């Protein structure tokens, strides 16, 4: 269980999040959606302890403000939006960075398995800096899932926090990565992902939190949150939400951007 209460974040004097409450449960994919600058990534940074916040965040019942970084690293991994590296590491060496000291059995095996999971088998000896942005992002994802490889450890769930995991990817790899998140949750782990693509969100998420201007304006099942009215409020544009029995919800842009009120 991830429980964040009354989270307020300011950059300088400017408030980014206004007393947000956010919960996510293990065994589910929870998506955070919202327009650019609405505070999605800031919320993710707050609940992973990356930035200072006012409020309270507990992961698996533990206040993260009082946990050691290595204790948190044992139960959750975080995928940033992009990760430039300063030195010429190989792909295998990058994935290895996610493995904690001596805890994981068969570590060298795990590197290959994690790379296979993101569709990068055979990339072990390639240089990270020479890969495309999308490939780099998948290498980082392999590092992240290697860090918390088993979704449940000693009876308590482990967590993936993903900041726009599919933004740099083509449609095939988008589906592959979202399926990975889905499988992780189905196996008992927790997944919290900041998403831009509303259709992928509708397809793979169990819970959607919609943020606009630093507040959560809707939270619940995709079918309940991804509605014309709420989306228009958040994104200030007209979309048409359709439901087809076989495929669930899908969303189409409908008209030009609405004039600012």
């Amino acid at each position, binding site marked *: 269980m991830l429980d964040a209460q009354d989270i307020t974040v300011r950059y300088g004097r400017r408030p980014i999040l206004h007393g947000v409450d956010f919960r996510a449960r293990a065994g589910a994919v929870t998506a955070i959606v919202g327009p650019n600058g609405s505070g999605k990534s800031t919320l993710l940074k707050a609940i992973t302890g990356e930035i200072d916040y006012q409020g309270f965040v507990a992961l698996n019942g533990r206040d993260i403000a009082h946990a*050691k*970084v290595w204790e948190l690293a*044992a139960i959750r*991994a975080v995928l940033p939006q992009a990760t430039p590296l*300063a030195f010429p*590491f190989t792909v*295998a*060496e990058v994935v290895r960075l996610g493995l904690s000291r001596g805890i994981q059995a068969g570590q060298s095996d795990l590197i290959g398995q994690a790379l296979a999971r993101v569709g990068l088998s055979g990339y072990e000896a390639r240089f990270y800096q020479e890969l495309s942005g999308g490939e780099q992002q998948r290498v980082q994802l392999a590092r992240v899932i290697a860090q918390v490889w088993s979704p449940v450890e000693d009876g308590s769930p482990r967590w993936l926090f993903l900041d726009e995991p599919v933004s740099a990817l083509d449609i095939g790899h988008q589906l592959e990565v979202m399926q990975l998140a889905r499988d992780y949750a189905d196996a008992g782990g927790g997944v919290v992902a900041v998403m831009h693509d509303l259709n992928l969100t509708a397809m793979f998420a169990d819970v959607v939190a919609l943020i606009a201007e630093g507040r959560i304006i809707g939270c619940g099942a995709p079918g309940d949150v991804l509605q014309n009215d709420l989306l228009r409020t958040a994104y200030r544009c007209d979309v048409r939400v359709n439901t087809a029995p076989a495929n669930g919800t899908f969303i189409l842009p409908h008209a030009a951007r609405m004039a600012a009120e």
Partner: protein
Amino acid sequence: MAMLAQDMTAPATPGDRSGRAQALSAVLLGLLGFATVLSLAVGASGASLWDAMLGLLSGSEISARDRIVLVDIRLPRTVMGILVGAALAVSGAVMQGLFRNPLADPALVGVSAGAGFGAIVAIVLGGLLPVSVAATLGAYLVPVAAFVGAWAAMLVLYGISTRRGRTSIATMLLAGIALAALMGAAQGVLIYVADDAQLRTLTFWGMGSVAGATWGKVLAAAPFIAVSLAAAPFLARGLNGLALGEAAAAHIGIPVQRLKNASVLMVAGAVGAAVAVSGGIGFVGIVVPHLLRLLAGPDHRFLLVNSALLGAALLLCADVISRVVIAPAELPIGIVTATLGGPFFLWILLRQRGILEM
């Protein structure tokens, strides 16, 4: 047992260069051994290491002159070369890991200048200290002052160039230039007020040399360098993680603030002591780690150890060159390392123009 055997024979994971890095360690150890023998054997006096060794082995007397040359001149000089070379190279590697940039080098960004300033303050103004303090510190006064100077320079540099966990390369290099200029001016003032005896000490010191090595100097610098080098391996895993950035390093369980503090102290200790006894010897800290990254990758678990070995070997070789090029006179070793290192540095710049635009 069977599993163990299997592990031993299992082929290395592709892309894992740790095997290569370990093999490189063995080669570098051999190189260091060779350089050590060379450094003991070569010198202006013509005293022969072989004669002396044969003499010792056969139990016969070796001449007092040869004994002095070997034991009191070449041996401390060699030990000093090993200590200083290892200290500068490992400091360079740690700084580059800390700043996440292959151009960080103690001499380039003003840390050596800070250490030098500390050392000069101690040499010129040390006499103003209360006798009890000066007596307690004794030979350690100059290394301690250099350590404090290097530490302060590191803190200023990191504070200026790193904002929100991101180090601006341009800011770092420019801040280093400003720091070095400031330290140079302060040194100038101190040199102006120094008396003749102090001036002579300063001049010899400033040339950048291990030529004046004595057992006293070796013993003064050794504790700082030994502690710093012993601490370095414990930074390796953290520096690897830091390559991902400060936030991601914390997410994989690295206590980032503690790592940064320890790295700054480690570099200050090693650079401070090295500069205190040898003056400013440039480029070792940038050339050595860069070469090793090309050969066996940037994994700090091996990079730091190999930097110590190659740094020591390289400095001994440079010192031997400085002894023989214009024998019987000697070229300051700083000139040798700059002659080799300057072009190398330009080559790095040409290869990686992109990093300056970060």
